[in-house]
Structure formats: C-alpha cells, structure tokens
C-alpha cells in the first residue's frame, strides 16, 4: 500500500495532529493559502507547509474555513479574512515552512493575552446549577439527597412507565 510509505502516515497520526502550533483567534473566519506544486526553491516553503501542517491546521481550527489555491499564482501567499471584513495578506516567498508557521502563529494565532481572557471568560460562564457534559455535573442524581438514576438504583414500580393500575382500561 503506497499510502503507508514514507512520511505520509506519520503526519496523520493523532499525536502529530496535536503538535500543531497555530490556533487562530476567533476573529479569523477564513484562511486561504496559494502555493505551487512544482515550485522553485523560493516557493518551496509554502508547498512544504501545506504538506506538513495543513492537517494540523484543520485539527486545531475546526470552525475556520480553510482554502487552498493550487497553482493559481506565481508568488506563494496566505490570506486571512477576519470577522470585521479585513483581509490580512502574507507574502510567503523565500520563507521556510517553519518560518511560515511561526509567522502565522504570531500574527493571527492566540497570544498569551487572548488565552488568559478566554480562561477568565470560561470561569465566569461556569454555573454550578447547569447540567451536562460541558458542566460541572452531568446529572441531578449526582447531587446529594436527590433520587439516583434508575441505571444505578431500581426505581419503584409505580414510578416506571410500565406500571398500570388498571389492566382492563388500557
């Protein structure tokens, strides 16, 4: 199977996906990147970036639309479309793939300040009265004094839906 040879399977491992450094800010809605498939040495960085980091980008930014422009223009570029309608253009000529990654992470990625703010907001949003997988408790049965879930303790027959008081009626 040719797909399992070389670096191809490596870059699709879960561990490799997790190593991605670029986590776009919430203001970034669309990110597009133009590159050449048969590049000159100056253009090779963008192609390598797509090969190595595109899957990581997709993994870490599920809500950002990611677009590839293949063989459209000579100069490799990246263009991000922000929430407020602004467009940020990156000139990727003469950049290696590590440099491209660093540039994108620095300019459009989440900085220390953004991460701190998001952490504070998540704390403020947390309500101990909420239930669910994203909250402090999954179910009311976890609260002391409440009736436990029927999966943990059998409910009395009259509480279950199967119980009927008059078999003649229904």
């Amino acid at each position, binding site marked *: 199977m040719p797909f399992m040879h070389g670096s191809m399977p490596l870059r699709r491992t879960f561990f490799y996906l997790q190593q991605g450094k670029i986590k776009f800010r919430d*203001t970034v809605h669309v990110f597009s990147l133009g590159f050449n498939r048969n590049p000159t040495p100056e253009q090779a960085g963008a192609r390598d970036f797509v090969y190595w980091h595109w899957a990581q980008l997709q993994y870490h930014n599920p809500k950002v639309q990611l677009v590839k422009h293949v063989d459209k223009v000579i100069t490799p570029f990246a263009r991000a479309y922000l929430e407020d309608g602004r467009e*940020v253009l990156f*000139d990727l*000529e003469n950049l290696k793939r590590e440099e491209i990654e660093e540039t994108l992470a620095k300019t459009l990625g989440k900085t220390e300040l953004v991460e701190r*703010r998001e952490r*504070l907001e998540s704390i403020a949003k947390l309500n101990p009265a909420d239930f669910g997988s994203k909250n402090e408790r999954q179910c009311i049965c976890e609260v002391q004094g409440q009736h436990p879930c029927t999966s943990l303790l059998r409910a009395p027959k009259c509480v279950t839906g199967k119980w*009927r008081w008059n*078999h*003649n*009626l229904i």
Partner: protein
Amino acid sequence: MLRSARILVTSENLIGGNGQTRNLGRRQPKQGKPPILPPAKKVLYHVVHAPWQKPEDVEELLWRRHVYNNAVTSMRDVFKSELEQKASVGLGIDAMKEAEAKELDELIAENERKNQEKAAARMARENQDTKATKSAILEEIRSELEKKNEMKKLAEKEVLAAISRSQHFVTKDNLEVKILEALEKPTIYDFAIDRQGNKYFVPEPVKYQEGTPTLQKGRFSRIEVPISHYNVVI
C-alpha cells in the same frame, strides 16, 4: 360433565361479568389517561399536627437565618465591587478585549510593513532581472546584425565580382563572336590527376581532320590516345 363445567368457568373468566375484555391479545391498548382516584381512606381526613417548637429556639433559628443571609449578601456585594473596580482600572474582560484588538492591529501593521518590504525587494530584483534580460537580448541582436552586415559585404563583393565577370558573358550581341572564339579555342575540362596533383589534360582536338580517320575500335567515349601525348599541367 365435570370437564365441560370447567371449560365454561374459564370462558367466563376471560369475558368479565361487566362485559369488558382483558386485552391479552395483540390489540393496541386504548388511548387516554386513567380516571382520577379518590384519596385513600388512610390519607383522607388525616391531618398531621407538628409539635410546637420552643419560642427561644424559633427566635435563635430566625436570628441565625438573618445573619447567614446578611453575610451572603455582603459577600456578593464585596465581589461585585471588586469586579467593578477591576473593570474601572482596566483589568476587566472588556479592557482585555480592547487590548487584544490593539495587539492584533499592531501585528497586522507589522505584517503589512514586512509585505511592503518584500514587495519593494521583489520589484528591485525584477527590475534587475529585466535589465539583464534586456541587455542579453540587445547583445544577441547586435551580434546578429554584425553577422548580417558581414554577409552583406560578402554578397556585395560577390555581386561586384559577378558584374566584373559579366563583361565576358555571352549575350545576343556577341553570340556569333563568342561561338567563333569557342570553336577556335575550345576549353578542355577532361583531365586526370595523379597523387602529386599533376593534371593530365587530353590533347586539344584537331580542328580539321587530316588524312584518313582511324576506325573506331572501342567505345566512343574512350580516348585512344596514349598518356605520353597528354599536356601536363602542374
């Protein structure tokens, strides 16, 4: 008899005395909620009288509740004022968002500056490349023109030579004279060459045959003259 009586009893059981059937078959149960039951006799008219607490205890518990409620309210106030103070100083979420926006603007401006630098560098490089290409093309054109010029000079020389030679050309006017000249002085192109480069021309043909002509022995093209009679030109 006994068996038949038993069978009758079972059939009565299946069809109740009030005419209702127990739906033990595969029929769907009827829709609708069951009727409201009257409260059980045990519950009906049974009032629970809680024993009276001591007035001191009630007073104490009320006081404690008030203290607790006051404490919670004041704590909420303290936290609220703390958050408001932070927001007023510029440490609130809104201030952080503003700082973020400012930071992003700066980063984008920095990126734009880099882009412009790169564009300028590219422009300079492209200009240089264009100049080099232009000079190369001009050089090629120049060499080509020189070559053509040389060719032209050669051609001119050739044409001049041809013109100078054309004085001796055969024309309509001097046709008779030239024919007579050719007959008088025939040009011989028939010769042999040895390794030293000596040319052996065949002897000039005789203009007027003298004596009796010899009989043809071999082919007509074959020259029947010994090589010792040839005119040698070195």
